[in-house]
């Protein structure tokens, strides 16, 4: 009797996890559907959209700049080790730039964006939910999805795309400086190999990725925000779940977009 | 060990009998004073009633007294030791003689009831596990909640949570106890039970501060009164003085008359 109950524990755990994941997937699908329905024709509060564009874009700017510089520096250091080994200093701009534009910069910027914007979004919507502000909107006959979620979603997609472009640029600048001061590779040499060997499609791949990441973070963070229950503790838990789910989506979509586009 | 830390572990009632004293305590948030030069004195074995409307700064004041929040100006003395000058270690030692019942229970939600109550004893580090277990059972019995050690806080009703919070505050038998709204949100029957516990504690000689909106409940218990609003002292004195106070707002508040 005892043994069977112990043996069933892992199965129960797997089962519960699966059910949880299925529930959240369903919720995210519903959220995506609700957003899609209000996109054609667009039903968005204009003032609310401007406010969110500002909150999402301008306020994340400093963090994205810092992240970009760090990413550039790391990639140049890593590439530098190989470039020196094979005495191919001329390729440093290509080696660091290729990986940065296609992979590392979109992922890192998206992860920071997820933390800065996605988490905040879940926390804000979640707080409105637990303090019954969302119900108050409903009783005033205001559609919470059009009023609360649409502007945030659009702002997130637009700003994620733009911020990845900004991140790419700062990563290159950070990388160029690192290669000048740490590796002693001239900035001109760095950019020459970059310009010669990097194609527009490398940059565009990052941008496409950014658009899908923006959609994912938008849908996921709104879904977890609007389904919060259980006061302050519930808000904390929802933010945690939201950033984790978004991070998984970011990596999965990264894989999907890479294989689809190449 | 400095002179101060030796002092905090050695309980001695001051010669003038004042166990809690605040002198000109002020606190500012964003340039507005939420406590404005508050003075108070609580003598050994007496109870101070701290009353006032919501957001007056009552909870904040008692947190400053316990050293949980540092005041921007003024001093707090517990048994003539200046709380505002103590370091964290010394504060920890001083808090061994303080108990506090929080307004919103503040039960540890990751521990069951038994562990909640045992924590102050464990931190004191003087008793064995068996004697801790016995003491927890004993105090739960005293508040008519026997055998609920294994329940989690979320399974309890509001009145039960208040009583568990009360028990956790007094389990170390501290000489000074602070009750922040011990009957808030409770029905009259449960409130009466709690006031009974407060009066028992007072009969055993504890010094206390009680925050409450239930004036009828605490009127017979308190010896001194402090009425604050927006952080400013509106009245300070004993029961006969507040009975005779002519200030219109104090009269309204004390008698519960409409404006």
């Amino acid at each position, binding site marked *: 009797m005892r043994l069977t109950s112990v043996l069933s524990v892992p199965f129960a755990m797997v089962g519960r996890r699966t059910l949880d994941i299925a529930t959240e997937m369903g919720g995210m699908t519903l959220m995506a559907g609700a957003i899609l329905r209000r996109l054609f024709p667009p039903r968005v509060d204009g003032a609310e959209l401007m406010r969110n564009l500002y909150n999402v874009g301008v306020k994340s700017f400093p963090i994205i700049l810092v992240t970009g510089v760090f990413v550039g520096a790391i990639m140049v250091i890593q590439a530098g080790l190989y470039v020196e080994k094979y005495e191919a200093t001329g390729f440093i701009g290509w080696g660091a730039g290729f990986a940065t534009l296609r992979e590392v910069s979109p992922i890192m910027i998206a992860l920071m964006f997820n933390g800065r914007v996605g*988490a*905040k979004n879940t926390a804000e919507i979640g707080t409105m939910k*637990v303090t019954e502000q969302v119900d108050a909107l409903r009783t005033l006959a205001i559609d919470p999805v059009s009023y609360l979620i649409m502007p945030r979603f659009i702002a997130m997609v637009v700003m994620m795309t733009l911020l990845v472009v900004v991140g790419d640029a700062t990563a290159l600048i950070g990388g160029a400086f690192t290669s000048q001061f740490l590796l002693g590779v001239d900035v001109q040499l760095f950019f020459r190999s970059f310009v010669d060997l990097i194609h527009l499609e490398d940059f565009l791949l990052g941008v496409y990725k950014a658009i899908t990441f923006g959609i994912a973070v938008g849908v996921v963070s709104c879904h977890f925000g609007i389904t919060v229950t259980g006061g302050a503790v519930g808000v904390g838990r929802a*933010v945690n779940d939201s950033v*984790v789910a978004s991070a998984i989506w970011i990596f999965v979509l990264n894989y999907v977009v890479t294989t689809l586009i190449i | 060990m400095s002179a101060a830390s030796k002092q905090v572990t050695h309980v001695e009632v001051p010669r003038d009998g004042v166990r809690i004293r605040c002198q000109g305590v002020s606190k500012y948030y964003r340039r507005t004073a939420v406590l404005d030069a508050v003075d108070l004195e609580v003598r050994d074995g007496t109870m101070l009633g701290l009353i006032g409307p919501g957001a007056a700064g009552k909870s904040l004041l008692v947190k400053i007294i316990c050293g949980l929040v540092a005041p921007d100006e003024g001093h707090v003395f517990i048994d003539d030791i200046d709380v505002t000058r103590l370091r964290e270690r010394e504060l920890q030692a001083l808090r061994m003689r303080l108990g506090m019942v929080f307004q919103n229970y503040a039960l540890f939600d990751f521990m069951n009831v038994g562990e909640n109550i045992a924590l102050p004893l464990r931190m004191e580090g003087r008793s064995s596990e068996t004697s801790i277990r016995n003491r927890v059972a004993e105090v739960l019995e005293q508040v008519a909640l026997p055998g609920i050690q294994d329940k989690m806080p979320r399974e309890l009703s509001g009145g039960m949570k208040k009583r568990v919070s009360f028990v956790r505050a007094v389990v170390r038998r501290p000489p000074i106890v602070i009750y922040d709204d011990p009957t808030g949100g409770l029905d009259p029957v449960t409130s009466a039970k709690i006031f009974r516990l407060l009066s028992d504690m007072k009969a055993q000689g504890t010094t206390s501060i009680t925050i409450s909106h239930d004036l009828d409940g605490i009127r017979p218990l308190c010896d001194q009164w402090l009425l604050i609003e927006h952080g400013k002292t509106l009245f300070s004195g004993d029961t006969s003085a507040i009975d005779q106070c002519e200030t219109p707002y104090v009269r309204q508040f004390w008698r519960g008359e409409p404006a």
Partner: protein
Amino acid sequence: MSAHPPHKPNVLELFLAALGSPFVIVGEQFREIFKVFGLTVQYALHGRRRWKEVWLQAYRIGNESLVFIVCVAGSLGVTLVYQAGLQAERIIGDLTPLGGLYLQILLREFGPTITALMISTRVGTGIAAEIGSMVVTEQVDALQMSGAHPVEYLVVPRFWASVVMVFCLTCVSVLVSWLAGLLTALLAFGVSPYTFATLSFVIPGDVILLLMKTTAYGIAIPIVAGASGLSAHGGSEGVGWATTQSVVNCSLAVLFLDVLLSGFGYLVLLR
């Protein structure tokens, strides 16, 4: 007695305030983080040892993030090897060094850093949410009244657990990424798995750097997250603020330490 008379700021003052406030906020957060860091070190060395609690926290960290990290490491491994393979095929035409180099870059960079970023997301947020909820529900005050120090009681066990678990999870993540890369190379380019099972490129410096990075991240994450949680105030907004702050600050701390340690590795270890 009004010590702070109301004062209407003029345009210049507003401008200076807007310019200075980010620095003030960043400075405050730095101070808070270093305060918690100092206290954690102090209590970790001299405080009560609660190994049972450390074990519990380690179990929670592993249990919460294992599946997550396997998913991320797997998809990252596939993507990286696929891109690198295409590029190598086009430019060099020889895919034999792919496996060895891939393992090396995993150990040096992507294994520890991506794992730490994922742990920041999963565990760092969890710590901040938990401690933040305890702050706003006055449980931290109650803890102090019981005679426990919040850093000693809440942060130190998570600190030990995280130091150990970041290393363990990094090993898992490297292994999963490596296997995923191996399978991708085999299926997409027909590269022999034997070329992957080589340590010929890995030098002792790589392993030392990996250990340094995982230790640094393991120390930084619980401290930064704990500092965010402890500086929460207000209701559910406060908890939301603390969790958001925690993801951002933990991730930035990881990236910053990565730059620092990679630079150190470049200059000292990996020559």
